């Protein structure tokens, strides 16, 4: 069963209790929340995702809720609960869905050490993966959303899971987190993309999530072999350039952006070394999304 097969009432009641067992890539999360914004966010963004039954195994159990204090009438807040604890400070109530998204990322990056996890977006074409590692502000998510709207399959926006045995990218397709100007950039670039209303004044500025394309969700169990590593560099006014990078430097950038490189020791080193040895490495400077997407499309055409 998928989420859109539940009526809005069924979805709300399941989220309230006992929780919705939602599959995203290899991860099943039991999500509980009575907050309308979370119910609506799940209904929009996760419409095509599989719902697991009560007899299944949930990797994580999370809850997004407002505390039962007087404060909820005055300046309502939400907490993210995981394993009976609240790992983050509360956020204003209108950021509830964003908090769920950040919390789900945290669950994976802190626990799924069966993978080498890199802070990178990844997209796929013809079975080959393009990795976009980068810090916030580099244009990683914008590029990822752009590519995912033009024929590339979305593998993930934040967390690239590398299978330790095969070195392949294990997809974790989830909504793409867009910040500030990139929200309008994507609205213009891909008018058909579904975004939820932006939430302002978060720690990351204004945030809106873009729904993952349906095909990427349906093909969420198909791994992809890394083929390109592109370090995105958004620079106002820059004309697009795609410059080959040294493998050594790119290796270091991947290692710096890994959440659990230290956990895997030698195995992690060898995995990244092999990934780099079989990939072409570039830096993509850009200011206009159209140009950057075209340049990266060119990469795929060349192979």
């Amino acid at each position, binding site marked *: 069963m998928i989420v859109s097969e539940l009526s809005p009432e069924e979805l709300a009641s399941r989220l309230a209790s006992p929780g919705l067992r939602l599959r995203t890539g290899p991860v*099943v999360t039991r999500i509980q929340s009575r907050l309308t914004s979370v119910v609506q966010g799940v209904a929009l963004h996760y419409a095509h995702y599989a719902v697991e039954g009560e*007899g*299944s*195994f949930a990797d994580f159990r999370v809850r997004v809720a407002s505390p039962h204090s007087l404060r909820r009438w005055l300046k309502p807040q939400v907490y993210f609960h995981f*394993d009976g*604890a609240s790992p983050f400070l509360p956020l204003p109530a209108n950021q509830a869905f964003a908090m769920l998204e950040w919390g789900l990322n945290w669950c994976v990056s802190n626990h*799924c*050490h*069966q993978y080498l996890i890199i802070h990178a977006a990844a997209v796929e074409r013809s079975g080959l993966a393009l990795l976009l590692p980068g810090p916030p502000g580099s244009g990683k998510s914008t590029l990822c959303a752009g590519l995912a709207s033009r024929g590339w399959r979305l593998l993930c926006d934040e967390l690239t899971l590398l299978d330790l045995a095969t070195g392949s990218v294990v997809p974790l397709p989830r909504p793409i987190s867009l910040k500030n100007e990139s929200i309008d950039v994507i609205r213009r670039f891909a008018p058909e993309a579904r975004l939820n209303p932006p939430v302002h004044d978060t720690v990351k500025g204004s945030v809106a999530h873009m729904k993952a394309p349906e095909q990427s969700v349906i093909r969420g169990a198909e791994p992809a072999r890394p083929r390109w590593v592109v370090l995105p560099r958004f620079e106002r006014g820059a004309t697009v350039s795609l410059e080959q990078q040294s493998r050594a430097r790119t290796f270091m950038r991947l290692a710096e952006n890994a959440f659990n490189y230290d956990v895997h*020791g030698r195995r992690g080193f060898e995995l990244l070394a092999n990934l780099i040895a079989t990939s072409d490495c570039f830096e993509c400077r850009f200011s206009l999304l159209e140009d950057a997407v075209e340049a990266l499309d060119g990469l795929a055409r060349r192979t």
Partner: protein
Amino acid sequence: MEPLLLALRDPEALLGLKLPQWEVLVNQARRANLLSRVAAGFDRDGLLREVPVAPRAHLLAARALAQAQADAVRREIAAIDRSLAATGAPVVLLKGAAYLLAGLPAARGRLFTDIDILVPRAALAEVEAALMLAGWAGMKTTPYDQRYYRRWMHELPPLKHIARQTVLDVHHAILPLTARLKPDSAKLLAASRTLPGEPRLRVLAPVDMVLHSATHLFCNEDVGNSLRDLVDLDSLLCCFGNKKGFWPALSARAAELDLTRPFYYALRYVQPILNTPVPAQVLRDAEIGRPPSALRGLMDAIFFRTLQPDRAAATDGLASLARGSLYVRAHWLRMPPLLLALHLTSKALRREQ
């Protein structure tokens, strides 16, 4: 029985579990910081491959994390050892660090939050200076905290390495100076053992290791890791219990070190909860540390609650009251009433600011 306790006692008994019960197990084990310990149990018995794929992924992930921590702790201990070589002071590793370097089963799949060492009080200033030179700096910087640790506690204010961010606790005793029980650190140091292949590093004698673990569990305010501490205790007793002369020496040492009360509690709770084999004679010997009946009833109510795996039901009002009372009790045991009042008042006032 709770899946986590079953996993700690007898991993094989879990193989018939259904997925929802595996989910409960992973949840309980993760909360108790024991997931990697559970993984080590399956691994030891060669059962990991028989665990269903979904929970197995968590066990493998936890195992990788614990392995990385163990490697890191070994490197860290080597760095501490190098930094302190010139002082000539004996350095006794405590708790997890000791289990790891001594190759004890208690180290299998154990997670670390910090490294603990014990040095003679007379060498404290020199040890602190040498560690600071090597990059360890105090984490508690307010004058009150400094004074609190240096006058009343059994350790220096925790040190953090400026580059590696690792935390080191330097102890000169196993209980605060102000505590009612007064185990003599000189005796612990005198009985400590060298480690094979390590010219300077030492660990406590087996009986002292057990008594320290018991003391830590039953006099500490860190209630979140209680079950983890009980697992340490169980593992040490199972490992040393087969050695000739261990049990009589343990009872005698508890009396000698003024630790008959924590010793009593240790056996009282570890045995029914983790099914640790303890000879009947030792249980009788331990009665010497038995508290008055009313107190014992209260302690039973508290400990049997806080030592249970932390599932949703255990977060009821009684369990949280039990955890709260253990925090208060730990402080009560650490300091005389007047000093405690001053300390808590001072902490409360500072929080106001």
